[in-house]
């Protein structure tokens, strides 16, 4: 099957036509992947960010959709589970092909870290996608800009703290008092973590306020918000920046801590919310969430 290459400009044109499209009734013809994406664009509203990373990454957008899967990251394992469950359209928050470029980059010296077109893992993954008629769409920038708060709410839901949000659309939650060690054990169990979780700071601190920051946390956000909570839970930070900020805060005598669970793991629950949201606009095909999970393990 030849995969049509939809240019960014063409995609924006297609998306523009979609505004005002009616959602078909249940039992109507199966929509194509492109039609589903158009519904997503309409439902998200506002100006579609077309110069970011969002868009079709693999497969034919004209493929009729049998089932939809959402995930934080379309790993091979997620794609295999999608096929097993009958889903052929995958909405992934993070890349499919090993980097922001999401595919091979021309081999210029400045691109040396990029992916080469004859890479065996890339070719095998692409073959799996094509053979199974999968379509992969990256939904990142546009989701975050309008539904970013759902990433936080999803993480809170998964941790059992959904009812404890201090302010709407914010990451601060008030939970029943526990120690930092107990909170970490709870997080580890609820998010089904294997080796990705790392904790810094005071393990004996009393934790009543937690700050949920799914994804990556910058130093600016860290400095502004770290003292609002007893325990900050995020996906990823740079170790030489925020990890050591947290370590130094502890040395300075403040009883708080920082937990990083892995960027992908922190984003998985938000994509569960995305699946629920998609169900409100796609009734012709089942929608399910397939978490990418914790890819790390620890040496023994």
């Amino acid at each position, binding site marked *: 099957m030849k995969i049509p290459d939809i240019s960014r400009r063409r995609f924006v044109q297609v998306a523009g036509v979609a505004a005002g499209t009616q959602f078909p009734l249940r039992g109507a013809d199966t929509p194509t992947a492109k039609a589903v994406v158009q519904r997503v664009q309409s439902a998200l509203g506002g100006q579609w960010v077309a110069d970011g990373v969002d868009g079709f990454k693999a497969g034919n957008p004209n493929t009729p959709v049998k089932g939809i899967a959402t995930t934080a990251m379309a790993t091979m394992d997620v794609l295999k589970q999608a096929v097993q469950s009958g889903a052929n359209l995958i909405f992934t928050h993070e890349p499919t092909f*090993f980097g922001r470029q999401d595919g091979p980059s021309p081999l210029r010296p400045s691109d040396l870290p990029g992916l080469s077109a004859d890479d065996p*893992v890339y070719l095998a993954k692409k073959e799996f996608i094509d053979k199974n008629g999968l379509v992969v769409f990256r939904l990142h920038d546009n989701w975050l800009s309008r539904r970013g708060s759902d990433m936080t709410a999803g993480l809170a839901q998964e941790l059992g703290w959904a009812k404890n949000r201090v302010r709407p659309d914010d990451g601060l939650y008030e939970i029943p008092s526990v120690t930092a060690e107990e909170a970490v054990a709870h997080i580890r169990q609820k998010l089904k973590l294997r080796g990705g979780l*790392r904790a810094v700071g005071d393990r004996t601190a009393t934790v009543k306020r937690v700050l949920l920051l799914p994804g990556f946390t910058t*130093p600016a956000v860290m400095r502004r918000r770290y003292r609002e909570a007893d325990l900050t839970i995020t996906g990823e930070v740079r170790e030489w920046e*925020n990890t050591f900020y947290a*370590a*130094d805060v502890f040395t300075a005598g403040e009883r708080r801590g920082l937990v990083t669970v892995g960027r992908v793991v922190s984003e998985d629950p938000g994509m569960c919310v995305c699946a629920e949201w998609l169900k409100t606009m796609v009734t012709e095909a089942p929608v399910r969430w397939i978490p990418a999970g914790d*890819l790390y393990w620890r040496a023994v």
Partner: protein
Amino acid sequence: MTGREVVELVKQNVGVPWRDQSYRDTFKFGDPDTPIKGIATTMMVTFGMLKRANEAGLNMVITHEPTFWNDRDETKDLVNDPLYQAKTGYMRENGMVIWRFHDHMHAMQPDYTVVGELRSVGVKGGENAEMHPGVLPIPETTLGEFASQAKRLSGARALRCVGDPKAKVGRVLLGPGYATPRMTSDTDIVVGGEQQEVDGLFDNVQYVADAASLGIPKGLVMLGHVVSEQAGMEDLGKWMQTFITGVPIRFVPADEPYWT
């Protein structure tokens, strides 16, 4: 001997032309003309390390990584930060001088961070390694066994791995700190300190996980930034002792920050 004189001696002995435009390899705190009672080398001048150095009577710290939690050691956004005030207050009170040695250290022959990291994970033959040692052969083993050896030798508490632990491996590509190399076709295991997990120039984590899912033997071993470059700062101290006498030079490790 003053802090400035110590740095002059390092510049004279480093073996590569000194680039004054390096924003990293500069004094980060204190008066460079302070008389130096003792020098501590460390991978990162954490607040805890700073206290241990001071308590050991060492008033100059040579740190590989930043003092103020950002690469450029920018402080303009930090002046009202209570942690910044506490850390600088401690350094001021105790007359400490902080100098960062990073870029030129990686340009040295050998690059002690890489030499130390290779030793920390049990890869032989890296005594004269430069910053990019290339793919190094190891006796054939499994990813799981290699990772266990790396954990045992490096002492890393939070060493994270990706890939199939049973994968047969024999070729290692290693980089220090944030310079974790990308997986290549002639590499079985990539070893690094830290790296952006996803959405970067090349995402090792996803690549290695997918390779495992496809039955292609690849592995990723992330030591943590401190652990990956720590051993090399002890080597650096020994090197400095060959041209600085009369001032004690001691390795004061930064602690691995993670408790799990």
